[in-house]
């Protein structure tokens, strides 16, 4: 069974859509800026999308929903969704999205505007918004998706795991197509929360660098349409080949020191894709730019996939938390068609403890298979592998 990617869109601080992503990656234009969030004095850099506008959202009003809507409106993505719904029937298209913050940006605002009795005011009395499943409720309503829907909220692995769950839904025949994706908008809670954990950097983040000193928080949205029965005039050639999920079983906010869960997720993804490590032509790393994550992830990659070139793209977008999985999946699988392997932006001198091959120039061979990693709080890991599907229905690269 092959799971085809029919269409996709991405919005981050560095690009508003797929076209701009290719340009930003080729020209190495970052979207990071000094923290200018209203009311925040944290000395850090952030990845903000200034174009986001919540006008007309009514009861759905939140920055997160506005960012999701902005991304859905890019290119002809909404038309593709409508076409797929017409083709399969409106209860046969499902929705699985990932988000970590959901719409807490709006809940933060609500608590700044409580009435004299400490109650929510009318504008903020939004039961569909102040809950962890809000993103899915909104997108289903906005696009008129009536099929099964599910919001996965496993911190920074959320929108990587959507591919695993969607793959299972398609295999079990629950639906014929699934819109997957994720969205996390900036708010004070994430910037101040990661600051409390002493994880944010006062500089633009520099994943894998000897002098890296922390992460930058970013916001992003991304979506992809998956099906096992591609429509004739809709196909990117990209297929989901494997996924691996695991738990560190170690600590709520520190990764396992030997990267046990990360390794387990990568191995499971390779096994499911029936691929050996040599076949993977590019890895988009989780690469947050935290001291600990990058060292541990690189150690696992060095021992498991020593010949594969890798990069972290957090230097463009910041760490987009629950949206990182979909954002980096799109960056990675777009390279299957464009051949653009993103460099490891902001890298000056690689950490001497890190011995993986990092993308440093243009002109690498076009990869046939790519991997992307996402690791979250609670020790929640997900690794994905994508490739270009075979035109026959052969076994090669098929998701078992």
């Amino acid at each position, binding site marked *: 069974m092959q799971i085809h990617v029919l269409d996709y869109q991405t919005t981050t601080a560095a690009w508003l859509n797929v076209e701009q992503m290719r340009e930003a990656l080729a020209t190495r234009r970052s979207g990071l800026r000094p923290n200018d969030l209203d009311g925040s004095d944290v000395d850090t850099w952030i990845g903000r999308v200034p174009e986001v506008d919540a006008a007309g959202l009514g009861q759905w009003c939140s920055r997160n929903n506005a960012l999701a809507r902005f991304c859905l409106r890019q290119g002809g993505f909404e038309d593709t969704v409508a076409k797929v719904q017409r083709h399969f029937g409106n209860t046969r298209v499902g929705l699985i999205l990932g988000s970590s913050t959901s719409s*807490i940006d709006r809940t933060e605002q609500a608590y700044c505007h409580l009435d004299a009795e400490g*109650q929510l005011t009318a504008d903020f009395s939004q039961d569909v918004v102040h809950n962890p499943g809000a993103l899915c409720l909104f997108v289903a309503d906005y696009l008129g998706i009536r099929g099964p829907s599910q919001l996965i909220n496993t911190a920074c692995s959320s929108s990587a795991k959507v591919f695993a769950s969607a793959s299972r839904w398609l295999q079990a025949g629950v639906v014929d197509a699934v819109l997957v994706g994720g969205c996390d908008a900036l708010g004070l809670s994430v910037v101040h929360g990661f600051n*409390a954990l002493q994880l944010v950097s006062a500089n633009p983040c520099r994943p894998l660098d000897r002098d890296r000193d922390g992460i930058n928080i970013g916001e992003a949205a991304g979506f992809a349409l998956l099906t096992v029965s591609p429509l004739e005039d809709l196909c990117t050639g990209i297929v989901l080949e494997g996924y691996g999920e695991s738990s560190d079983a170690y600590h709520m906010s520190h990764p396992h020191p030997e990267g046990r869960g990360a390794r387990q997720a990568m191995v499971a993804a390779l096994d499911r894709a029936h691929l050996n490590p040599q076949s993977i032509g590019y890895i988009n790393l989780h690469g947050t730019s935290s001291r600990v994550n990058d060292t541990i992830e690189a150690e696992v990659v060095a021992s498991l996939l020593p010949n594969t070139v890798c990069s972290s793209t957090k230097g463009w977008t910041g760490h987009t938390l629950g949206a990182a999985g979909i954002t980096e999946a799109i960056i990675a699988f777009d390279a299957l068609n464009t051949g653009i392997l993103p460099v490891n932006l902001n890298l000056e001198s690689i950490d001497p403890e890190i011995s993986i091959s990092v993308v440093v120039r243009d002109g690498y061979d076009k990869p046939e298979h790519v991997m992307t990693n996402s690791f979250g709080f609670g020790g929640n890991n997900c690794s994905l592998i994508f490739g270009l599907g075979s035109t026959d229905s052969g076994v090669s690269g098929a998701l078992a």
Partner: protein
Amino acid sequence: MIFSISGIGAWGPGFTDWPQLSALMRGEQDSAATAEAPKPAVIPSNERRRAPLSAKLAVEVCSQATAHYPASERQMSCVFASGLGDTELTEYMCRELAGEKKQLSPTKFHNSVHNAPAGYWTIATGCSRPANAVAGLYRSVSQGLLEALVQCQTEGGPVLLAVYDTPATQTLSSLYPCHSPFAAAVVITPSTPDACEATLQWEVEPGEDTQWPEFFLPDLLMSCYKTNIAARLLAVLAPLSQGKSAILRLPLSVGTCLRLQVTPQPIS
């Protein structure tokens, strides 16, 4: 394909395990007095002090549901579902951020992620299997059930499903009038073991605006069923407590429902 429920845990108003909840649902027992929070022994006491109520509830019912498995078999994929997450932590962060200092506790921040209960459970039991955490407001229970059943069918099992919701804070209770904690867990296996509580068959069906089933419950549990989102699992547990088969249609999305055929098994 037939699945089975082979382990149940429960904690909520008037009950601290599944036999008590089952007897309450049959009207055979008066509500027992319950503490404010369970104390799951599987979490070391220093960690338990830092664990939020949501995590303690979820870990307690997971421990109960898997208690009959030998330790080596207790490592199973797990799915956690909750409609509201932890409103106490949400409110704590929002109040701090609405103030001048905006200084958050690092522990409370990492405990605020929706998969914190999954994290506490996998850490406490050394479980390296995949853990999922889902949310779908009023449809969280059916979405959790679907995720667990689909995983069971496509990846093999067993799969542990835990649902939990804690009382909403006073400010958020105007939107979500949830006043008592409820948590329950079931182990779903892809085959029918010799001794199981019930067998399950499932299907996703078209179903416009399906409503949660109406059935008899004693007052305290009925109030919980109506107001605590996780307590909607009672619709699945009720046939088990009565020993009667049932076909349930649970709301899954605007246009679909989860059809569940529940067949209790005689206790061998």
